[in-house]
């Protein structure tokens, strides 16, 4: 997978979530994603950016325009150095929440993208990577 464009933004406040949404939208438009696919990707990014902020204590988002052969897509990576997730499988369950939310952030965003990868180590932090292809 080749990376065409690379952008890194800090996720430190709720303002940054809105900024992140706009950047992801711009990149999805440039990569030619349909309106529905743009909306799904931006929504997933919004969920994950909020997770980084609320559960990870802040972190960063890396936004990449990618291509693989003739396929074009957008890859977004969220990284934090927060407490990490002890049981990733449990955290991926619909409705599972530790902060009184709806518990749809991780499981829901996985449904909204084509590729979803999560790495987490307790005490070390969490990294979530998503890709939406055109």
């Amino acid at each position, binding site marked *: 997978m080749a990376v065409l464009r690379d952008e890194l933004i800090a996720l430190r406040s*709720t*303002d940054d979530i*809105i900024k992140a*949404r*706009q950047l992801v*939208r711009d990149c999805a438009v440039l990569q030619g994603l349909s*309106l*529905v696919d*743009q*909306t*799904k990707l*931006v*929504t997933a990014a*919004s*969920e994950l950016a*909020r997770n980084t902020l609320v559960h990870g204590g802040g972190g960063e988002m890396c936004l990449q325009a990618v291509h693989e052969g003739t396929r074009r897509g957008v890859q977004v990576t969220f990284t934090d150095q927060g407490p990490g997730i002890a049981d990733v499988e449990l955290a991926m369950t*619909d409705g599972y929440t530790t902060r009184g*939310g*709806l518990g*749809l*952030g991780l*499981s*829901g*965003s996985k*449904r*909204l993208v084509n590729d979803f990868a999560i790495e987490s180590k307790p005490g070390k932090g969490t990294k979530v990577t998503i890709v939406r292809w055109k």
Partner: protein
Amino acid sequence: MERIPILKMGPYLLVTIQVDMHDRVAMTLQDELTERIVAERARGVLLDISSVDVVDSFIGRMIGNIASMSRVLDAETVVVGMRPAVAITLVELGLALPSIKTALNVDAGMALLKSAGKMSGNGRLTR
């Protein structure tokens, strides 16, 4: 800080969300709307989200909260103007907002509120 205007239309309140929903904007809207429902003795709230291009679980929860708070204050909420891409995304996200009344546009939402005013005691529409 940005604020979302609340307009009075007869016995109803019209809220049109045109800004990117910031957490504080959402909280302020909940406070102001509940105040206005009581002050104006509003019978219903039309929440126009036709300019909103993303509804994540935070905004979805805010919409649900507004509907619940309004109901407790004896006003019905109708969410109007949801974009098709937003509807598809919300359902796939797992947030189908089952307890929220929706209408395609403000006119249809207004008609729904008017008919809800003639509801019978069991909560069903009388025809």
